């Protein structure tokens, strides 16, 4: 049993009965310690991913090819900051402070989605990220919008609405490049080739190798397995690639008439674990950029605090 002995078995049973009835758990409700811990881990990783996820695309804001693309990209990156804040706020309802969570991210203790440890080498990467990475996030988050923890589920509902814009702007950009000059076409095909496999890895290890999944599924946080979600993403994406005449870098990709699924080749899990463990192409660069931003923002936080203190003092003086 993974439930620690500190949890009263009768309360755990009552809690699991609530989950089985499809009830939504709210912050002040009793919950097993392990449920709380798993949610803090999962939700904070998710929030960190949104925040770190601003970096690869933020890299291209100043070099967007037109004002229209620049406005879209700015708005998308700002949304990612908002998504991070929605989820941090949801995580705080479990009794942790955002300050602690941010500290764990900056110290390297906390994880975030490995996809953001890959570099954005060309402008086409920005479009492909919107199409693949946000597309994969929508598949995952649509499932999480039905999670058993209310604040998490509500954050996901908001996020899914906004991610649709992210995906559409990405796919539009990809489609534009795909019907552009031979150079643009080659550039976008190269971006597709580099982002396809890491995007499939976003759904996490195969269910049989995912220790946290079983527990999260039992408690209704996750309603579907990693493999089912990954298959759904592949099924949605293959026709989108065909529509813009781009190929996906997988010779084993083929349609199975019987199952209605696009079968795909073997994922390189060694690469996945290398990146998770901190040795991806950009892990160090991403954390260094977050630390720098946090430290360079210190004076803004101090100034806001000083201003508020001054206002309080003058209110007291006037009274």
């Amino acid at each position, binding site marked *: 049993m993974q439930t620690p002995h500190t949890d009263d078995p009768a309360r755990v049973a009552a809690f699991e009965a609530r989950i089985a009835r499809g009830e939504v758990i*709210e912050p*002040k*409700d*009793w919950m097993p310690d392990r449920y709380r811990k798993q949610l803090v881990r999962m939700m904070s990783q998710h929030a960190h991913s949104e925040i770190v996820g601003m970096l690869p695309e933020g890299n291209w804001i100043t070099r967007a090819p037109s004002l229209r693309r620049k406005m879209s990209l700015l*708005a998308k990156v*700002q*949304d990612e900051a*908002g998504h991070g*804040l*929605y989820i941090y*706020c*949801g995580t*705080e309802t479990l009794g942790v*402070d*955002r*300050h602690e969570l*941010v*500290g764990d991210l*900056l110290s390297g203790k906390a994880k975030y989605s490995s996809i953001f440890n890959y570099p954005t080498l060309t402008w086409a990467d920005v479009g492909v990220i919107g199409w693949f990475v946000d597309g994969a996030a929508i598949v995952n988050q649509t499932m999480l919008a039905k999670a058993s923890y209310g604040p998490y589920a*509500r*954050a996901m509902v908001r996020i899914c609405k*906004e991610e649709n814009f992210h995906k559409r702007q990405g796919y539009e950009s990809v489609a534009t490049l795909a019907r552009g000059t031979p150079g643009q076409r080659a550039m976008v095909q190269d971006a597709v080739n580099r982002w396809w496999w890491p995007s499939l890895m976003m759904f996490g290890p195969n269910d049989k190798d995912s220790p946290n999944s079983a527990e999260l599924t039992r408690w209704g946080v996750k309603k579907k397995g990693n493999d089912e979600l990954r298959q759904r993403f592949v099924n949605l994406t293959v026709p989108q690639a065909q529509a813009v005449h781009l190929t996906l870098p997988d010779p084993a990709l083929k349609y199975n008439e019987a199952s209605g699924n696009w079968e795909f080749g073997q994922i390189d899990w060694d690469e996945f674990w290398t990146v998770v463990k901190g040795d991806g192409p950009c892990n160090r660069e991403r954390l260094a950029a977050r630390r720098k931003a*946090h*430290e360079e*923002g*210190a*004076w803004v*936080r*101090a100034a*806001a*605090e*000083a*201003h*508020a*203190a001054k*206002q*309080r003092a003058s209110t007291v003086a006037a009274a």
Partner: protein
Amino acid sequence: MSQGKPPDGTPDSQWPLWEVFIQPQYGAPHEHCGSVHAVDAEQALLNARDVYARRNEGMNLWVVPSSAIVGSTPEDVGPFFDPANDKAYRHPQFYKVPRGVKVF
């Protein structure tokens, strides 16, 4: 995190927590939509606008210090709402009207 601690020693990215309520359209009630950290009410409103109303989601925002909210206790849901349980006479269905008469 020792960087950037404000003079009073509170953690640098913490600040007080404010609950945010949004009125989706005129005439509708305000609904809770999340929370923000901010040094004061004015900053809380601006942060709430930037976090929860980037797409015209609302006509009006309230921010309330989280510490000011008092809620009922989930464990007491039974006894707390119990007084309403045996008062069927507060509902229109409790009352009989002569057959064939339209009340509304």
